């Protein structure tokens, strides 16, 4: 039965290495845990990693490639997560697929997934070329991931331009790898600097967190283990906000207590 209200969400950034795949894995698990039937689609055919972050790399039998070629059924290619059966991964095919894959192919795959899932999360490749455009074709809305650095914000802006021209909306922002101390010291672009420049609503804010690396080592997203690390909580909150819950996003650089923090705030007072 077709779920008419399926949400097709592209997770993209322009720049590589800012945290798209990490967000896709954690968000997928968090949504599944909250009861939503969720599919994660690895649209990064060149550098597929989503399987690895989810700990599903040894269970792949078929991929999107065989589904498109109709040499297997969708069910055969979907890899269900053992602990979180509401979540399934559709793995990326061979990198050589990039030579012939078209936007329509991605639309077709997304539509197939939409028949059985509430959420289809699409992990986009870096860049703004063909691979990205194919991934974008499968989406209705988007989450742009960026870090508070000039190069990442600039690339995010390019991507937002493309999303706008394709009519993908809403577009929401996740600010990743935030270091509250640097922000408080004005040595890192502030939260409102980034949201003002990109003119997007903030869906979530994720701190720089060592536990992210630990969790990728294990292939167990932070949201799976109920790990209460700052990043784990942030990813869970992103999922809840997507589901419509109103949870305020807290600016960590303004949250800090104590004399140093107060002094820091005093120093930021505008005097003229």
């Amino acid at each position, binding site marked *: 039965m077709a779920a008419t209200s399926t949400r097709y969400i592209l997770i993209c950034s322009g720049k590589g290495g800012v945290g798209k795949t990490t967000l896709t894995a954690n968000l997928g698990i968090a949504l599944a845990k909250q009861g939503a039937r969720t599919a994660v689609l690895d649209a990064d055919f060149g550098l597929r990693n989503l399987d690895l972050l989810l700990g599903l790399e040894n269970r792949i039998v078929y991929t999107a490639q065989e589904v498109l070629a109709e040499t297997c059924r969708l069910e055969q290619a979907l890899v269900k997560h053992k602990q979180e059966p509401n979540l399934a991964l559709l793995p990326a095919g061979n990198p050589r697929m990039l030579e012939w894959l078209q936007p329509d192919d991605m639309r077709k795959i997304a539509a197939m997934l939409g028949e059985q899932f509430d959420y289809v999360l699409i992990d986009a490749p870096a860049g703004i070329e063909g691979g990205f455009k194919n991934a974008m074709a499968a989406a209705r809305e988007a989450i742009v991931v960026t870090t508070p*650095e*000039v190069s990442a*914000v*600039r690339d995010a*802006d*390019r991507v*937002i*331009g493309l999303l*706008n021209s394709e009519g993908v909306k809403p577009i929401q922002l996740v600010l990743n790898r935030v270091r509250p101390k640097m*922000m408080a*010291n*004005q*040595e*890192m*672009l*502030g939260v409102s*600097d980034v949201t*003002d*420049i*990109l*003119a997007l609503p903030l869906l979530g804010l994720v701190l720089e967190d060592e536990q992210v690396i630990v969790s990728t080592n294990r292939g167990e997203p932070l949201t799976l283990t109920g790990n209460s690390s700052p990043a784990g909580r942030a990813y869970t909150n992103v999922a809840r906000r997507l589901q419509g819950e109103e949870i305020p996003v807290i600016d960590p650089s303004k949250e800090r207590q104590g004399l140093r923090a107060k002094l820091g705030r*005093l*120093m*930021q*007072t*505008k*005097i*003229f």
Partner: protein
Amino acid sequence: MTLRDVIDKLLGRQPASANTAKQRLQLVLAHDRSDLNPELLQQMRREILEVVSRYVEIDFEEGDVTLETGDRVTALVANLPIRRAKLPAPTPISEPTMESELSS
């Protein structure tokens, strides 16, 4: 300007980098968003100045023509301080006498 900026200045320290980052980003994004290459922008500047100078005397040392950006909209902003207005340039056919004749 914040208190920190003032203290940094007094102590001869480099200002905090976040603000520099923001300003540089805004400029580079203005160009990215406009798809205008630098040569075109220069050409446009020259032509704008030429047109405006026909009507008013401008002080371009104090002015500039830049792209500014906010809320995903890029605007061309010309800041052209006027020294004084020029007298309307007499055009060949409209001699003062002719004009009074026509308007009467």
